[in-house]
C-alpha cells in the first residue's frame, strides 16, 4: 500500500543540527534567567552579550563567504537559525539588521576594502547597525529623501535628518541612503554609505513609543564627514541596490513571528481553557504553516541568486496580518479571565499589543506592499 511504505523523517528536515544547537542555547540562557522571552524581540530585545554568544558559535553571517568570517551556508540554514531564535523570543536586536541585510548588501556591492573593514565586525557582533532610510518627509515614499551627501576632498559631507531609526542609540554603525545628485526622477541620484556613529556631526535623539519604550530615534547630520571608502556600491546607484535589500528585509520570519510568544501561550490556554478556540487556532496554525513555507521559498530564491521582491512583500503583508490576528484569538481565549487570574493583563500580551501597530508599518506599510504586489498585475 503506497501510504505506508515510506516512514521516518518529514520531507525537509535539513538543518536539524543547527536548530538543535540554537534551541539548546536559548533554553540554557532562559533557565539561567539571562533573558525573558518577549514579543518583537528582533527590535526590542537588545542584548550584546547574547549576540556575542551567537557570534562565538558562528551563528551570525552564516550565509556569508568564509573569507569574511562567514560559513558559506545557505539562506535556508539561516532561516532555521532565525526561526528558532524568534520562536524563543530571544534578544537578537543587536545583530539583527547587520546580519540580515547590511552584511549581504556589502557582500553584493561593497568594495574589497569595505568588506574587510565591516563584515568581520558584524560576524563578531562587535558592530551594531542601524538603518538610515526613513526621513520626516520620506516615509513610505523613501525615494523622496532629502538628506544630502556632498562631495569634498577624500569623501562626502552629510547634511540632513533621519527618523524612526531603530536602535540608533545603541548602534556603532549606520547604513545611510542619501542624495548625491538630482536627476529627473527622484529614484536617481541616491547613494548608499556606511557611517561610524561616533563621527562628529551626528547626533541621536530618542523618540519614545506609545509603550513608553525607547527604540526609535531621530538622527541629525550636521556636516558629518564620511570617507570615500565608505561608499557602498556605485555612486547614484543607491535605489537599485536598496530595492534588492528589501527582499532580505521583508522576506524573513520576523515578519510573522513578532507575536509568537503570545501564540505559544495561546496553545497552553487552548488546551486547558474554558473558551473553545479550536477553530480559530486551526486557522492560525494553517497560516503559520503557510508562512513558514513562504519564508522557506524566499530563502530558496535568495540561494538561487534571485531578489524575490514581490514574494517577500507578499510574505510580509500576510505575516503582519497573522501577527495581529494572534492577539485577537488570544484575547478570545483569555476571555474567561473572570474565572481566574486575568491573562489579558499579563506583560507578554500587553507588550505584544502595544508593539502591534508597528508591525504592518515598519519595513513597508501594508498599503505600500499591496500596491507593490498589484503593480506586477497591471498590464
Amino acid at each position, binding site marked *: 500500500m503506497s501510504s505506508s511504505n515510506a516512514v521516518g523523517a518529514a520531507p525537509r528536515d535539513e538543518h536539524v543540527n543547527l536548530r538543535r544547537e540554537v534551541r539548546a542555547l536559548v533554553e540554557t540562557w532562559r533557565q539561567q534567567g539571562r533573558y525573558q522571552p518577549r514579543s518583537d524581540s528582533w527590535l526590542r530585545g537588545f542584548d550584546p552579550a547574547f549576540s556575542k554568544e551567537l557570534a562565538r558559535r558562528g551563528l551570525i553571517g552564516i550565509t556569508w563567504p568564509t573569507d569574511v568570517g562567514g560559513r558559506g551556508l545557505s539562506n535556508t540554514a539561516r532561516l532555521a537559525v532565525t526561526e528558532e531564535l524568534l520562536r524563543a523570543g530571544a534578544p537578537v536586536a543587536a545583530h539583527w539588521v547587520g546580519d540580515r541585510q547590511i552584511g549581504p548588501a556589502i557582500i553584493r556591492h561593497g568594495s574589497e576594502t569595505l568588506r574587510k573593514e565591516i563584515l568581520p565586525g558584524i560576524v563578531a557582533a562587535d558592530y551594531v547597525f542601524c538603518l538610515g532610510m526613513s526621513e520626516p518627509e520620506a516615509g513610505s515614499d523613501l525615494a523622496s529623501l532629502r538628506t544630502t551627501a556632498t562631495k569634498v576632498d577624500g569623501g562626502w559631507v552629510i547634511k540632513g535628518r533621519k527618523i524612526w531609526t531603530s536602535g540608533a542609540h545603541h548602534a556603532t554603525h549606520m547604513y545611510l541612503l542619501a542624495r548625491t545628485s538630482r536627476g529627473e526622477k527622484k529614484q536617481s541620484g541616491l547613494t548608499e554609505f556606511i557611517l561610524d556613529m561616533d563621527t562628529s556631526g551626528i547626533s541621536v535623539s530618542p523618540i519614545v513609543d506609545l509603550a513608553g519604550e525607547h527604540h526609535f530615534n531621530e538622527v541629525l547630520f550636521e556636516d558629518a564627514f564620511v570617507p570615500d571608502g565608505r561608499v557602498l556600491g556605485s555612486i547614484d546607484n543607491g535605489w537599485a541596490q536598496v530595492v534588492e535589500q528589501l527582499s532580505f528585509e521583508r522576506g524573513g520570519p520576523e515578519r510573522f513571528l513578532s507575536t509568537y510568544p503570545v501564540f505559544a501561550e495561546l*496553545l497552553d490556554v487552548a488546551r486547558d481553557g474554558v473558551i473553545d478556540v479550536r477553530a480559530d487556532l486551526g486557522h492560525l496554525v494553517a497560516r503559520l504553516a503557510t508562512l513558514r513555507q513562504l519564508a522557506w521559498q524566499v530563502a530558496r530564491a535568495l540561494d538561487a541568486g534571485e531578489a524575490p521582491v514581490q514574494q517577500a512583500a507578499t510574505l510580509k503583508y500576510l505575516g503582519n496580518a497573522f501577527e495581529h490576528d494572534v492577539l485577537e484569538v488570544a484575547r478570545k481565549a483569555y476571555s474567561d479571565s473572570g474565572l481566574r487570574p486575568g491573562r489579558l493583563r499579563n506583560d507578554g500580551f500587553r507588550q505584544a499589543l502595544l508593539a502591534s501597530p508597528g508591525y504592518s508599518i515598519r519595513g513597508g506599510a501594508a498599503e505600500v506592499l499591496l500596491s507593490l504586489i498589484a503593480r506586477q498585475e497591471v498590464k
Partner: protein
Amino acid sequence: MDETSAAVDSLIADLAKGAQEPPAGDLPAIWTSLEDLGLAGVGLAEDVGGSGGDLTDLIALAESVGRHVVSSPLLENGIARWALGEANVPAPPGVCTVSMLAPDVVLNLGGGTVDLFEVPWARHAAVLLVVSASGVHLVDLRRESVRIVPRVNEAGEERDDVTFNCDAAVVVASAPSVAAIRNRLALLWAAVLAGTIESAYGLTRDYVNGREQFGAPLVRIPAVAGLLATVKAELVQVEAGLQRAKDHALHRLDSAETTAAVAAARVTAARAATVAARLAHQLHGGMGITAEYPLHLYTSRLWAWRDEAGSEHQWATSLGGAAAGLGEDAVWDVLTSP
C-alpha cells in the same frame, strides 16, 4: 506546470468549453469524455482499470478541473476506486462515490437504517464508500431498499440524501487507513480550489485592467489595486499550502505531519475561496452578477467547493484541536514545519 500537466490542462480546457454551466442535477456530459479519454483513471493502477500516473499527476489534474470548473464525479469515483483497489476489492462498473464523515463520527450499523446527507452523485452511483471513525464501509446503492432524495449544492452538483439498511454496508478490510483516504481526498479538493481561485483571479485581473471608468482602467484606482493584490496574496498562500501538503503526502499519506499539512492546505484554500469570490464580484461590479458573464461559473464553485471533503470549519477545528492537544513543540516541529 510540467509538459504532461500542461497537455492535460489544455485537453480539459477544450472539453470544458461550453460545458461549464452548473449541471443542474444531471450527470454532466463531460463525464463520459473524461472516462473515454482515461482521465477518470489517473492515479489508479492499470490492473484495476486505471490509467496509471501517481498522486502528483492526479493533483495536477485536480488543479485543471478547478481551473476550468469541470463538474463531475472525477474525484469521488477516483478515490473510491483507489481505496477499493488498495484493498483488492473489485469495483463495479459505473460511478463509485464516497461520503466522508467528520473525523469523530462513528457509523452506527447496529440495526435499522442509516441516513447520510450531501452524498456526491449518489443517484448515479453504483456503490458508495463511507469513510468514518468506524473505518471504511462499502454500500451497494443499487439495492432496492436504498432510498435517495436528490439535492444539489450551490453549484448545481448532485449532493443527495441517502438512506440504506445496515445490511447493505460491508466493511472493506485492508483498505487504506481512514487518515490516508481523508488526506488524499482533501488534498485533491485543495488542488481543485487552487485552480478555481487562480481562474477567478485571472478573470478579475483582466477585467480591472480592461474596464475603464473615470477615464482610466479601474486598476489605476488605488483601492481597486489593493483589493486585486489582496486576492493575489490569497492565491500565493493557497499555492504554498498546496505545495507543502503535496510534499508531505508524497512522502507518506497518513502521517501526523501530512494530516496537518493537508488540513492547513484545505483551510487555507477554503478561506481564500471566500475572499476570492467576494472580491472578484466586488471588482467586477454589475457585470459579474449577470448570467451571461462567466464569473459566476467560478464563484458558485468556490462557494460550493470550499466545504467539500469536510467543511472548512471541521478541518480548522481538528487542526486546532491537534495543536492544543500536542503543544508548542509539536506545533512547531510537526504541524507547521516547512
